[in-house]
């Protein structure tokens, strides 16, 4: 359960807010809910590792918006932690997190999560192709002196 939930919460967090909002609106879902924690903007300290693999150090912070809500029907709880300061993004992510634990899971997977995952994969592959186009082979020239 938590592995699947981690996957969809991560996908919802990384989704472009506009695309997520559009897909959510298209589902026509608008469940009633109460806030357990209204959307709140804060930060997360991002850590790196020395040399990429060594001991951790603090690199700097990033903005994060979080919220938690409870569905009126059934009482399922949804959480969201999303990069940036978009409260609507957090609300929709928390609502989908809650609904993914209900009978609507399959529908949301097909109508929201799958399209988001496809678009994200597309973006990655497009960028990888652009990077690949700039891949070079440097030839070492023979030096003048023998």
């Amino acid at each position, binding site marked *: 359960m*938590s592995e699947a*939930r*981690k996957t969809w*919460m*991560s996908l919802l*967090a*990384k989704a472009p807010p506009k695309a997520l909002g559009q897909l959510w609106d298209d589902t026509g879902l608008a469940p009633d809910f109460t806030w357990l924690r209204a959307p*709140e*903007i*804060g*930060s*997360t*300290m*991002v*850590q*790196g*590792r*020395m*040399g*990429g*693999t*060594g*001991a*951790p*150090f*603090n*690199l*700097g*912070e*990033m*903005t*994060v918006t*979080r919220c*938690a809500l409870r569905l009126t029907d059934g009482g399922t709880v949804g*959480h969201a*932690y*999303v*990069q*940036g*300061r978009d409260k609507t993004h957090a609300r929709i992510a928390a609502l989908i997190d809650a609904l993914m634990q209900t009978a609507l899971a399959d529908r949301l997977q097909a109508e929201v999560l799958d399209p988001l995952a496809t678009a994200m*994969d*597309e973006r*990655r*592959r*497009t*960028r*990888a*192709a*652009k*990077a*690949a*186009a*700039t*891949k*070079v*082979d*440097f030839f*070492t020239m023979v030096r003048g002196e023998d």
Partner: protein
Amino acid sequence: MYVAVKGGERAIDAAHDWLAEQRRGDTTVPELDVAQIREQMTLAVNRVMAEGSLYDPDLAALAIKQARGDLIEAIFLIRAYRTTLPRFGTSRPLDTGAMDCMRRISATFKDAPGGQVLGPTFDYTHRLLDFKLAADGEDGASASAAVEPPETAPARVPHITGFLGRDGLIEQEPASDEAPPDLTRTPLELPTTRALRLQALARGDEGFLLGLAYSTQRGYARNHAFVGELRIGTVPVEMEIPELGFTVELGEITLTECETVNQFTGSKTEPAQFTRGYGLSFGQTERKAIAVALVDRALRWRELGEDDQGAPAQDEEFVLSHADNIQATGFLEHIKLPHYVDFQSELELVRKLRRQATQATETEAAQ
């Protein structure tokens, strides 16, 4: 001594009004919006995020607009905003090995596994002004050739230093999960640790670090750096959510990572091998990451058993106390603010000294 001054409200209001007018400039020219700055001034945005120590491109773009393009002023605005944010937690240490690279080059190995990927770089441009960009309606972007996306997502690109490490030719980076110190929570105390230095350098002024790094290349604490690897790309940020009991990815950030490989002739206890310098920075901030790696390496002289050559880049107190441009500009610029009382007392002192000198001369002459 500090003494409060009162008054000047009307003048200050008028100055603010004029500032706003100057920021807007000629109103017959369309106003910049924040999205334009975010998308078209990305390297300025990246610098503000790196030195503001807060990853949020929209906020950085807003700060640049508000600061009229003065990046240190924009960084100041970001730092001030940052202090108002509640801290939700700390991420898992980033796995830069999993970076989705848009640029990845090595100056040490021509045939680096994973390839040399130039990415969007200025390196091979001719540094000639492109007047097409000044022409109306010409943005140059249309020239970019459409590329066919590959079938599968890109694979993990290995770190170059990993190859040297396998043969024991480079010092090992000791793995640890010890919680690092945080400069934003506890004030700097010297001597400090490499973890704290890397945090301070990551938010340090690019110009200052560039100068220091250059000094190490010119012979001040010379340590023969090669860029073992420079990579730029996106990495997911993962954080443990206490109320859920598992980690989730919060989003993705763009980073620049530089690993230098430095000559090291060995010491009594260590065989000759290469040593490392490391720089990590928010955004596409290549010059900054390289400079951080060089300065990081120079500051490691003590732990590597090297000599203190008395070079500025080896002096932790000097480097860390002066790298922060907000601290520096605050102290520098405060001397233009009213110091009337201080100055009056100095003026009085100078007059007194002159009076005494004159009297002494007169007394001498009379004798």
